[in-house]
């Protein structure tokens, strides 16, 4: 492996470990809240309807797929195709954020406010923190929109790193979907 590739891979691995530690801490906290509580959801709250979160999950997973295809197209040096998949990833990413917005207004409409206790804190807080990272991810996708004009080694490295980060966000959302909304 070339030194630049190795450096890029190592740095991205360390970065993803950092992200994973941040979300692991949140999930550890959640596990403690859940196990310490007699009722979940606590009295006065109902489970969130699964429709919207499921749709979000679908969007982010498909966008991950497109991101994967964009990377593969870059590696086989098909810029036009790669750019098309990149556009699709970006659009689905934005759509994901839109559904998150709907989720928050839906929660508010059903009387679950930010300050309504730990159940609401987790619903809002965790999705906010994830959304903040998605915005960061969208930023890196926008950056790719600018630099993905050729298929040089350095462009390929950038696409690979953004792809890894985008998959990471998808995986975190999937874990959130199952632990917070489904379970």
């Amino acid at each position, binding site marked *: *492996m070339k030194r630049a590739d190795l450096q890029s891979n190592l*740095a991205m691995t*360390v970065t993803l470990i*950092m992200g994973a530690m941040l979300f692991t*801490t949140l999930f550890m906290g959640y596990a403690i809240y859940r196990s310490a509580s*007699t009722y979940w959801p606590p009295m*006065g709250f109902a489970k969130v309807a699964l429709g919207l979160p499921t749709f979000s999950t679908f969007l982010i997973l498909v966008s991950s797929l497109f991101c994967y295809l964009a990377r593969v197209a870059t590696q086989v040096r098909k810029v036009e195709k790669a750019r098309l998949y990149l556009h699709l990833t970006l659009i689905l990413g934005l759509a994901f954020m839109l559904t998150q917005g709907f989720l928050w207004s839906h929660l508010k409409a059903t009387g679950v406010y930010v300050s309504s*206790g*730990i*159940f609401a804190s987790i619903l809002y807080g965790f999705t906010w923190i994830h959304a903040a990272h998605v915005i960061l991810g969208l930023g890196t996708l926008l950056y790719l929109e600018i630099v993905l004009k050729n298929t040089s080694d350095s462009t390929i490295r950038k696409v690979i790193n953004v792809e890894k980060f985008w998959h990471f966000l998808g995986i975190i959302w999937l874990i959130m979907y199952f632990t917070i909304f489904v379970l």
Partner: protein
Amino acid sequence: MSGGYNEIHPEPTTFISKYLISFDHKVIAKQFLWYGIFFLGLGGLMALLIRWTLAYPGVPFPVLGNLLFPDSAGIVPPDSYAMLFTMHGTIMIFYAITPILIGAFGNYCIPLMIGARDMAFPMLNMLSFWFAFLSGVVLITSLFLPLGAASGAWTSYPTLSTMIGSPGAGQTFWCVAIFLFGISSTMGAVNYVTTVITLRAPGMGYFDMPLTIWGLWLTAILNAIFVPVLGAGVILLTLDRVLGTTFFLAGASATSGSGDPVLFQHVFWIFGHPEVYILILPAWGIVSDLLSFFSRKPAFGAKSTALAMTAVTVLSTLVYGHHMFTTQMSPLLTQSFMTLTMTISIPSAIFFANWLGTIWKGSIRFDSPMLFSLGVVFVFGLGGLTGLHLGTVTTDLYLHDTYFVVGHFHYTMAASVLLGGFAGIYFWFPKMFGKMMNEKLAKLHFWGTMIPLNGVFFGMLMIGYGGMHRRIYNPFVYDSLKRLIPINEFVTISAILMGLFQIVFVINFLWSLKKGPKAPNNPWEVGTLEWTIPSPPVHHNYDEIPVVKCGPHELGNPNLKTGRDFQYQTEELVQG
């Protein structure tokens, strides 16, 4: 994967690209050094204000008192006292020790000592400093807020740190500052880990790296893994404070579900215990190298020192519970944490014995870096031994939250790291700035620091054992603590003395910078890579990437016929 591609960046020409937005690891190291020394002074001044209040409660602070506290006629008021010890801890840990030991020495030593031209990611390195700078600005701004800076101690336990305990914006600023600093630290960590793995000079295996690099590298790994944990904690705390969530607020659990204040303690110490090793590992590494260099002997068991430091790094992630023995933790859990904590003694004793083995029968040169290194050996020994009392549940229940704890962590984190930092500054100053420091003043600075330092911290151990609590404003309203007034005065006088002797250092530093005699390439006669090039090094460090042929501690080899008692790492090991 070492050797090969390692490009020369063009030298910057404008003032801004040369000194401000510099990508050069040597300039960034100096930026971190100035930054750290500034905050060291600020944190030190706060320490003096705290000490003054404890020895002479109700007496105005001399000279600066009226300027700082005009409303109370120069006396430190109780709310400001809480703010002072909070900011003293925060500043010393995150804004003084971290920038000097990790920011300055990490940036300066890693590329030079492994034979690289720069860090793997120079731009990330530059951003790392400016995030730290921004964080410092936020923290200093918080001192001028209407209700003052954070006052919930550097640990920021809820409910002290929630809106109930700290209504002002100070605590929120604290969270933001710490988060920004975390970004800076993790950026540095990405860089250090990658650089050490990929940019070592050809021929340099991991055990050919100086132990300084081992310490810094292990620190970077811990930083990358555990700083994000604190990041998560302060995000949740900020959400609680600003947006009204209830993660750390206790409430009626059956109805609305309850937040959990103790959860923050877990999160904090999962980060916090590795953090103390993040701070001490670079100092251990520096001392391990310097003891060998100035004893003119190979480091005794260098490989086992490196492995012992690695073992401490791993164990440090498993012991955080010993900070929380008094939180009604299950005895089963406290026993486990106690056992794991005691296990750390084993690798610590290994490298400590190696230090003694290194100086044993060496032809020791008592230059200032060596004096400071020997100082570290002494104070770290004391700090480590007092840790045993606190790691043991039975004694900790009595000593918890007393000044004994303060004495212990100052011996380990403050004294060891400070002396280690000074050792590093005296040692690398000639390489950094191309000038020699004044040796007489350096020795005066050493004794003027070392003796009062033990007065301060040993005194703290004693008043702690005598039962004085850590964070009370005026201990002498309690009759039982009145007998501790004389020792408290002794500690304060020692602290003032120690503070005054730091002026010697500042004068020496600034004077040498301007007027010091020009430093030769290798003033200390050691063989690591940075001493093979001019002082200060050129912009791209090495015209040709060096090829490493032996370890970093090849001193006093009886087979050497070159007229020197050491050999450079670029020379083939001389054998009989």
